[in-house]
């Protein structure tokens, strides 16, 4: 690491109490404070002190329940992310605010207005992680009988984003009214919001399928993705850059930001010890509830030491049966008990990379992956909150800065300028 490193962008992905499902039980976790304003204000200031480009929240449009039973041992994911970001923006000046919002259960006018409002209230720091929402229970919270098919959801998303963009662009023009008539939407009107400091919020996407990648290549300015290995990261990034170029856009105008969960300690041994402690906090009861949520079937009614009740699950689960069959079959073939299978499931990272080690190792790993073209930055997921985020800011950030991989200070005030994206004004 002699020559100056490539500049890395960092996002703080702050879902609830952190990455580990049992993390809320850690002695230093503060599960009660995630219901208070001071917690979010402190975390926002911490992220800004760490020179993060943005704070990002994921989102769901359903409770965590499986077949009507809400898990007892899993934390609520978070308070409403949009509300939190607005509050966090009020006590900061630079850090971006990226909210996840569905194009399936909203109207373009409503969403365009909410992001315009956030952009205005934060003086140009809003970002939109565009999702189409795949959970069947979400449909039932919006009066729909069934989940819309994926191809259709993406078609709707594409037109949705186009309409929202027209609305934002028109705000600055002589005639702020738009008149749109398409396959999905007929919109005659204008935004109430009088001004967007960024022109448009930064558009973020996370789709992994072919449909999702093409949609991202046409619309996104940053992409959140899993990258379990450096090779996977490189393959994904080069695939997206090709697709972006094919869509006649500049590949450098799309930042690839894979997820990276982390646990830090002074020594590698101490970090590993911390991880095994955190994994232990996800007891069998929690792991069984965790899988129940993932398959839309309440497994808690079955004997944890008995076989995986695959026939019962397939007969009654609320998710596509073939996906669930594929998922459970290996465990059934190995004759795993329900508890064993669930424990493995809850403890295996699915897709996202997890770093467990020292601040020096983490800084080196982050710089290395970026240098090898595996990413443009990271969507960092603290193992549990707020302790791990504080460790990162205090111990990894200075190392990244020493190597020239992270800004010493913010140079712009908008999220666009922090990310080095083109101005929309």
């Amino acid at each position, binding site marked *: 690491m002699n020559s100056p490193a490539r500049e890395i962008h960092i996002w703080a992905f702050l879902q609830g109490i952190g990455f580990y499902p049992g993390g*809320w*039980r*850690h002695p230093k976790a503060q*599960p*009660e404070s995630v219901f208070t*304003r001071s917690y*979010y*204000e402190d975390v926002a200031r911490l992220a800004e002190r760490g020179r993060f480009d943005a704070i990002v929240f994921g989102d*769901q*449009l*359903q*409770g965590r*329940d499986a077949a*009507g039973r*809400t*898990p*007892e*041992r*899993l*934390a*609520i*994911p978070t*308070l*409403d992310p*949009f*509300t*939190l970001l*607005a*509050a966090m923006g*009020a*006590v900061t000046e630079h850090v971006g605010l990226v909210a996840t919002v569905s194009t399936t*259960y909203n*109207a373009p*006018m*409503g969403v365009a*207005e*909410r992001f315009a*409002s956030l952009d*205005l*209230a*934060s*003086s140009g720091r809003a970002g939109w992680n565009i999702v189409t929402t795949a959970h069947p*229970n979400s449909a*039932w*919270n*919006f*009066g729909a009988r069934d989940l819309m098919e994926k191809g259709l959801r993406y078609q709707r998303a594409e037109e949705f984003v186009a309409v929202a963009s027209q609305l934002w662009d028109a705000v600055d023009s002589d005639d702020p009214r738009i008149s749109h008539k398409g396959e999905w*939407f*007929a*919109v*005659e*009107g204008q935004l*109430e*919001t*009088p*001004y967007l*400091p960024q022109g448009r919020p930064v558009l973020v996407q996370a789709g992994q399928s072919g449909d999702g990648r093409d949609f991202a290549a046409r619309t996104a300015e940053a992409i959140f993705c899993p990258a379990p290995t450096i090779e996977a990261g490189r393959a994904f990034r080069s695939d997206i850059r090709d697709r972006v170029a094919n869509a006649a856009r500049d590949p450098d105008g799309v930042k690839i930001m894979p997820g990276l969960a982390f646990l830090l300690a002074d020594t590698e041994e101490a970090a590993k010890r911390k991880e095994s402690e955190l994994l232990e906090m996800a*007891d069998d*009861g*929690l792991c069984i509830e965790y899988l129940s949520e993932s398959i839309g079937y309440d497994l808690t009614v079955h004997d944890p030491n008995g076989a995986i009740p695959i026939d019962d699950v397939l007969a009654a689960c609320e998710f596509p049966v073939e996906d669930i069959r594929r998922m459970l079959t290996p465990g059934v073939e190995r004759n795993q008990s329900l508890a064993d299978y669930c424990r493995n499931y809850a403890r295996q990272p699915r897709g996202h990379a997890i770093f467990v080690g020292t601040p020096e190792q983490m800084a080196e790993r982050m710089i290395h992956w970026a240098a090898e073209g595996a990413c443009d930055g990271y969507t960092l997921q603290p193992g549990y909150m707020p302790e791990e985020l504080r460790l990162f800011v205090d111990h990894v950030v200075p190392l990244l800065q020493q190597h020239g991989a992270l800004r010493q200070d913010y140079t712009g005030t908008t999220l666009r300028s922090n990310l080095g994206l083109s101005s929309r004004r």
Partner: protein
Amino acid sequence: MILSTCIDLTGDVPGPLLMARLETDLKARKAAGADMLLLGRQKGGTVVPGRLDALIGAPALASVADGTPMVAVLPALFSLPFHVARALSAADFLTGGTMGWMPTVATWQARAPGFGADYAVSDAEAPPKALDMVRATQALWDSWDADALILDKASGRYLDTGHVRRVDYRGRYFDVMGPLNAARPPQGYPVLVADEADPIFSAAGFAAELLLVGRENAAALSDAIAALRAVGFAGRILAKVSPDDIDGCCPITDAAAIVGADGFHVIAADAPAALTQLRAGQPSGDSRGSLRNRLSLAIPANPFSTNRSVAA
């Protein structure tokens, strides 16, 4: 005596200094004796949604408001129960239980073509649809009991699953299953505020907890308040008064002659001056605890909790 007034979130000069201006406006109203602030726009005598989404404005101002209750003025017909229930749950937590909400119908026609066919209704359907939105939202808050959270690290129990449920609300316009992915707000429900002049108030069965009432003079206002009480209206009532010349609005100089109001909603180009004038010599309201507490409003019962304890 309760005093409220609007704070228009964008005003006419938006831009980089918006939040600084809002901070100044908010502090000036607070210092002049406002007990609560309606995040909305005064259109003549009526309160309508502002140009900045109040569900963004409320959390963005929470730190400056620092306990001063805020009421999010919303366009009822363009709001979806799941989103509203969750945003207000979060806002009520972040503000320490001092949120109110004011779903309105008044200005919906002008905006309807912008929201498209999914949101279109006839004039006659507008009030019942707005009411259905309110009820579906409240049903989602009822999907959690107030005591559902346990947060016990030692036992690993985060919540009591018997205190969270699907509610399967089926209304004429909205079906929502639940449970909400947010805990019951600290106040049970944020306080439901309405303007008597808004069409939502005409929906049969709509039960505002705080009502703004306007008439051209003190005598007419006193009569209107007496009439509301006579038909059993049990919430708090604020009389709309103004130092400016506003059609159908009682002059502020006649405020003392109004009988039966719990306080005043001030409509004024110079709100701090008008608030100061009304506050002079009058005790301020309770400025601690939840907004419900300050307004002496009971925490709404959760029908699911009630049934459960009856069964037990």
